[in-house]
């Protein structure tokens, strides 16, 4: 833990896992959607389901979806703010298999028709882990620049992405590959040490066999 994990974060209370982490889950999910959230169907699992309401987990998730950070003093008023911008949302509880006790599933649709399903866990101290994207298991924290490539499971796509990154002098910190079945739908999650240039992201998007490219860099 670094020094400001001990003295910090500066956050809206009452709980770093149930409140600050929940804001961050909402915030990262909105970035992954890459669109303003129009509709959100939110499922709460485990401790989020049993003590979430008393900890403001619900308000925190919505605040994050509105683009707020964990120290935003408007978090308690997030439901009203969501109404003002026309965001609809529902909450229900769910029991997931093998999920962290503080887990939420967010089914989001955006203003421009984009859709995503994110399953994320708040793992303590306000830190989070994205566990599933659109039903496919992943494993990243969104603390580094992260490139997520959805592609058809066929040879060559990993090489395309990694050689592009090498050309642009972007060092890969971690590389994870996931797929639903052989020849089906695959996801690459790449955490990098440097920023990935926007034109490279756009170049990837138009390649044959690449279904969707998402790039987030939220360190500020």
């Amino acid at each position, binding site marked *: *833990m*670094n*020094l*400001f*994990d*001990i*003295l*910090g*974060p*500066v*956050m*809206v*209370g*009452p*709980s*770093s896992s149930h*409140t*600050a982490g929940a804001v961050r889950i909402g915030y990262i999910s909105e970035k992954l959607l890459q669109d303003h959230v129009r509709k959100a169907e939110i499922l709460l699992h485990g*401790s989020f389901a*049993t*003590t979430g*309401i*008393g*900890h*403001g987990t619900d*308000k925190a998730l919505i605040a994050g979806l509105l683009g707020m950070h964990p*120290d935003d*003093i408007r*978090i*308690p008023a997030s439901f009203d703010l969501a109404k003002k911008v026309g965001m609809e949302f529902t909450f229900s509880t769910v029991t997931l298999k093998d999920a962290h006790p503080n887990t939420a599933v967010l089914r989001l649709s955006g203003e421009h028709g984009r859709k995503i399903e994110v399953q994320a866990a708040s793992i*303590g*101290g*306000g830190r989070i882990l994205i566990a599933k994207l659109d039903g496919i298991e992943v494993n990243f924290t969104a603390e580094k620049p992260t490139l997520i490539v959805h592609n058809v499971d066929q040879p060559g796509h990993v090489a395309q992405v990694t050689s592009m990154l090498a050309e642009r002098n972007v060092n890969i910190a971690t590389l994870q590959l996931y797929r639903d079945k052989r020849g089906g739908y695959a996801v690459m999650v790449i955490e990098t040490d440097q920023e990935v240039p926007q034109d490279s992201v756009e170049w990837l998007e138009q390649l044959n066999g690449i279904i969707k490219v998402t790039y987030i860099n939220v360190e500020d």
Partner: protein
Amino acid sequence: MSYQSFEQVLQKCHTEEKEFWRVILEDDMAERNVSEEDSMEHMRVTWDAMLLAAATYEGNLNSSSGLVGGDGRRMEEYIHSAVTESLCGEYVDTCIAGALQMGESNACMKRIVAAPTAGACGVLPAVLVPYFQKRCKDTDKILKAMYVAAGIGQIIATRSSISGAAGGCQAEIGSASSMAAGALTYLQGGNCEQIATAAAMAMKNLLGLVCDPVAGLVEVPCVKRNVIGTVNAMSCADMAMAGITSRIPPDQVMDAMKEVGDKMDTSLRETALGGLARTEEGMKIAEKMHSSHKNC
């Protein structure tokens, strides 16, 4: 953090003739690859957030469950009422009020600084803010004391835990109290050994403290436990300044905290299945909260 123990930090203090806070500051610079100015600036922002949180307490607020609110105001009124002469005296009572207020602000979804956790966020500001306002108007000195506190918290997190779910309340309020005791000892002019001694004594006094939140909320008993963390920190700093030492070395105290936490039943580690949460009244409150949420 590159240090695993108080022993290593103290050794660095001696071999390089550096103060405790500087050893921790330099470790932060190396770990996050930042300059001294950048690290100090981050600490200043953190301190400002603490001051602002203390200054913006609202005595008429209640948490959404209705369990806590207004006690920080009651304590402050008591200090100034002079109907009864208080036992602790005005200065200590001001610190007690500060601890209650920050704990309540946290429960009421106001902005606070987790130190080391949100549930224990009242202890460090409760000792530092009155010290700054009534004893030492020197921001730099306070920032250095915060490095001392953070260093102690890092050692505890490395050797043991700062999470109630892992180690019970001793890991949260115990750690906060230990950090605050070290910070106060530094402010009072204590040397590196005295800082470590105060931290060790503060943790020893709270060993075994369970995490038993009523209805699983960071409210009862969390808010008032910030008070024991605060008063304990002050008494341990005074003992260390008096030259009293800990018979058990600081690192071994923190190891004992881990052992106690590991042995603690899970019902007493933030699950709301034991202790105050399982009293007749505690369960009644939880049941009432549960049914009111079902209805809305």
